[in-house]
C-alpha cells in the first residue's frame, strides 16, 4: 500500500512489536496494574491495524487471517462462559471462581486470568474483523 514511505515503514516495523508486548503486559498484569482484557485487546488490535495501514490489507490478512479471527472471537466468550460452567461442575455457582482450585484465593486468581484472557481474545478478534471488513469494502469502492 505504501511502498514509497520508507520512514513510515521502518518506524512501524520498530514500533509494532513493543505495542504488542505492551498489550500482553496489560493483559497478564491486569491483576496488579491498570487495565485488563478489554484494554489489552484494543491495544493489540491497534497494532494489527497499524500493520495493515502501512504494509497493506492483503499482507495483514495473510498474517492474521479473518477466518482465524472469527474462531478466536467466539472462543473468547466460550472461555469466559466455560470458566463459569467449570466452576459449576466443581460444585459452586456460575462464575464462582472459589471452586476452581483447592484454595479459594488461588481459584479466584485462575478465574480472573482465564476470564480476562477470554475478554482480550474476543476484543482483539472483533475489532480487527470490523476493520478488515470496512477496509476491504473501502478498497473496492475507490477502485470501482
Amino acid at each position, binding site marked *: 500500500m505504501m511502498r514509497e514511505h520508507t520512514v513510515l515503514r521502518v518506524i512501524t516495523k520498530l514500533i509494532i512489536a513493543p505495542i504488542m508486548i505492551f498489550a500482553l503486559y496489560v493483559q497478564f498484569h491486569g*491483576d496488579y496494574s491498570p487495565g485488563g482484557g478489554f484494554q489489552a485487546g484494543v491495544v493489540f488490535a491497534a497494532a494489527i*491495524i497499524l500493520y495493515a495501514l502501512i504494509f497493506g490489507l492483503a499482507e495483514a490478512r495473510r498474517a492474521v487471517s479473518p477466518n482465524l479471527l472469527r474462531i478466536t472471537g467466539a472462543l473468547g466468550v466460550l472461555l469466559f462462559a466455560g470458566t463459569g460452567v467449570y466452576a459449576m461442575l466443581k460444585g459452586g455457582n456460575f462464575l464462582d471462581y472459589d471452586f476452581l482450585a483447592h484454595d479459594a*484465593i488461588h481459584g479466584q486468581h485462575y478465574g480472573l486470568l482465564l476470564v480476562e484472557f477470554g475478554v482480550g481474545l*474476543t476484543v482483539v478478534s472483533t475489532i480487527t474483523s470490523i476493520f478488515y471488513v470496512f*477496509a476491504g*469494502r473501502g478498497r473496492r469502492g475507490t477502485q470501482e
Partner: protein
Amino acid sequence: MTTDIVLNIVLLSFMAITGLAIARLRNLFPVAMLTGLYSLLSASLFTLLDAVDVALTEAAVGAGVTTVLFLATFGLTRAREKPVQRSRTIIGLVVTVLTGAALFYATLDMPHFGERHTPVHDHPLRERYLQTVSEEIDVPNTVTAVLGSYRGYDTLGEVTVILTAGIGVLMLLGVAWRRRPEDDEEQEPPR
C-alpha cells in the same frame, strides 16, 4: 495540585477549540483527524484524573481505531459534507443549546471537582470492596477484581455484546463483500 488545575484547564480549552473546529469544517478528512485529536486530549485528561485504564481505552479506540474506521468509511461514501439550509442550522443550534443547557443544569447536582465527601468516597460499599478484596481475592487491582469476579456476570454480558456487535457488522458488510465476485460470474477477477 495547581499544576493539575492548569493542565486540566489547558486540556479542556484545547478540547473546546477542537470541537468548534470540527463543527466549522466541511471537509471530513480533517474532521476525522480532529476527532482523533479530541480523543487523545480526553485520554490525557483521564490520565490526569488517575483513570489510566479508561485513558488506555480512549487512546487506542478513540484516537486509533475509530479514526481509521472513519477514514475507511470515507472510501465508501464521500468525504465532503453537503451544505445545509440556513433554516435547518438554526433548528440544530436550538437543539444543541437546549441539550447543552440541560446537561449543564444536571452538573449542578454533581459534587464539586476534587471534593472529599462524595457518594463514591462515603458509600459503605466502597469500604467493603476495599477490605474484602484483599481477603477474598487477594489482587492489588481492585477494579479487575470487581469487574472480573464480583461482577463477572456483567462482564460476560459485555463481552457477548462485543462479539454480537462484531457478528452484526460482519453480516452487514462482510457477506456483501464476499458475494460480489460470484455475482460477476467470473467474467472479471475481483480487482
